[in-house]
């Protein structure tokens, strides 16, 4: 089953990526739109495909992969099934960082300030989570720490947006909390993609050590795992991947929770396989959600987080239900 998993997931992502390119409010022919992707300067079809649909599909792929992968890495490192960038506040602090960079004008002065500020925001909360929840902390301390961090970051984000001189800014609180890929451009892709790719590479490099960690800390250390170095890699990798995603797409929840859980039984619980599988699964989930928002409400900017929460929240409740017996 494990052997078939990767080709199946990769094929699913490829199909959804092309579907994302082909579905949109402007009705374009199949051949016409695909050939427009590779043509040079040209008419409106080329513009729609290259400047509107391509960045949206690429960001869907990357943001989904980043969220799925960071969820799997955090769960592996904390050995806690509830660790998830959205749930433990990493996404909301990244959003706070991004909003601060935008509203203070730093992002306008120097383009990289936006992903860097989001990365810093995400980094602070990953660090806090690891300190507060600790490696011996149970699900309860993790969730409580997450609630506190999310609530504070969410409140500060709302405050900054409410105080903005721009009347639109206050209306965008929902966007920063729910996420959306509407009307993104290649500029956003170039800004965020390097950080996401770098973060994901760092996270994927933790795979073997996370495998060792499943045997327990002492066993891992005796196998030569440097826990401090591993912790630093998880923090930096998650901060870069999630921070850059949130900076351009807002905070989309639940992808990092649902995907590792669905895939864990299929890879025999091995982090080294779960990490790449979750990246593919996350990409598939986000691309599917982004296609769904365009099909359900083509003329409205329905937020991505609405759909992922519809799938994710019942799943989360199911997890809590199962954990009840374990914690008590």
């Amino acid at each position, binding site marked *: 089953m494990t052997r078939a998993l990767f080709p199946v997931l990769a094929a699913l992502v490829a199909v959804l990526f092309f579907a994302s390119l082909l579905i949109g409010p402007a009705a374009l022919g199949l051949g016409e739109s695909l050939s427009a992707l590779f043509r040079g300067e040209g008419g409106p079809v080329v513009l729609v495909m290259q400047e509107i649909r391509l960045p949206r599909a690429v960001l869907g792929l990357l943001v989904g992969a980043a969220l799925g992968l960071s969820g799997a890495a955090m769960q592996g490192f904390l050995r806690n099934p509830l660790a998830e960038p959205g749930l433990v506040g990493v996404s909301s602090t990244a959003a706070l960082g991004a909003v601060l960079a935008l*509203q203070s004008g730093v992002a306008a002065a120097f383009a990289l300030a936006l992903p860097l500020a989001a990365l810093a925001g995400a980094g602070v909360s990953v660090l806090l989570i690891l300190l507060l929840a600790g490696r011996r902390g149970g699900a309860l301390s993790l969730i409580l720490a997450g609630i506190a961090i999310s609530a504070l970051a969410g409140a500060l984000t709302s405050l900054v947006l409410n105080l903005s001189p*721009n009347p639109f800014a206050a209306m965008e609180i929902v966007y920063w909390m729910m996420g959306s890929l509407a009307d993104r451009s290649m500029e956003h892709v170039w800004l965020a993609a390097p950080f996401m790719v770098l973060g994901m590479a760092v996270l994927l490099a933790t795979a073997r050590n996370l495998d060792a960690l499943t045997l327990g800390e002492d066993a891992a250390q005796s196998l030569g795992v440097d826990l401090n170095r591993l912790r630093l890699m998880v923090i930096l990798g998650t901060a870069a991947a999630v921070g850059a995603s949130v900076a351009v797409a807002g905070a989309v929840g639940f992808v990092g929770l649902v995907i590792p859980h669905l895939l864990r039984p299929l890879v025999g619980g091995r982090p080294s396989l779960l990490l790449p599988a979750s990246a593919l699964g996350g990409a598939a989930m986000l691309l599917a959600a982004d296609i769904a928002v365009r099909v359900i409400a083509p003329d409205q900017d329905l937020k991505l987080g609405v759909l992922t929460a519809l799938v994710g929240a019942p799943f989360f409740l199911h997890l809590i239900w199962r954990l009840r017996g374990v914690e008590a």
Partner: protein
Amino acid sequence: MSVSVPSSDLIRAAVLVLWAGAAMADGPASDVPAQAPPSRVVSINLCTDQLAMLLAAPGQLISVSHLASDPLSSSMVEQAAGYVQNRGGAEQVYLMHPDLVLAGTYTATATVELLTGLGVKVVQVPPADTLAQVVGQMRVVGSALGRDAEAEAMVTRFQSDLAALAVPGDKAPAAMYYPNGYTAGAGTLSDEILTLTGFHNVAGEAGLTGGGILPLERLVMAAPKMIVTSTPYPGQSRSEEILTHPALRAVRDKAARARMSDADWVCGTPYLLNAVRGMADARRALEAAE
């Protein structure tokens, strides 16, 4: 910015009802000029602010809303500096002891009810979705202020200027494009201005009535020859990022003409003629270039 946003079908239906009501209420008032004109007038709506500043007798108007001093929404920032600013709260307005409050029909209902309950006369003016309603608005405000003659002069001048600005002949495709992909479809003031100045509105043809969203993809496919976008506000917002989207930039580069909408587009005042004149000039320049 809510003031500049045209209304939906439903809202427009409501406006027509209220409009009819306002017109009937005015009828008898002009026949029987029994009441003395109000002497302490407070306006709490951007559009009534500007009409009142243009029509009121010296000293008659004491306060206008803070929006009248916002250069992105108001055409009369300099004049507004001569009046006390208000933020439209019932408490603040009541303490000014007005004998007439001018408000919009969408001004916070609670504020209007509270003021009416306290015995203050409130005249609510509906927003203008057509050029005919602009004229009606001028008359309603003039009549409320007891300045019917001044209002009538304003109307006559507005109508003759407007007629002189009409551009006959072929219609060129044009679109209004605002933050979040918001646009003005059929049955809006912007739509009527486009038609009057020799354009046809691609949003109206895409089936949009009233204000609504035109996805960027569909705007690109329509390839308008003229595009009107809004001036961004200070501070950043994701809603306005669409105005610097590379695809929109390309549409703007390919369009023969592009303009920014400004405060002159917002309200049904004589300043609207500046917006119309700008569009008429752009249409003639387009004609000359072809």
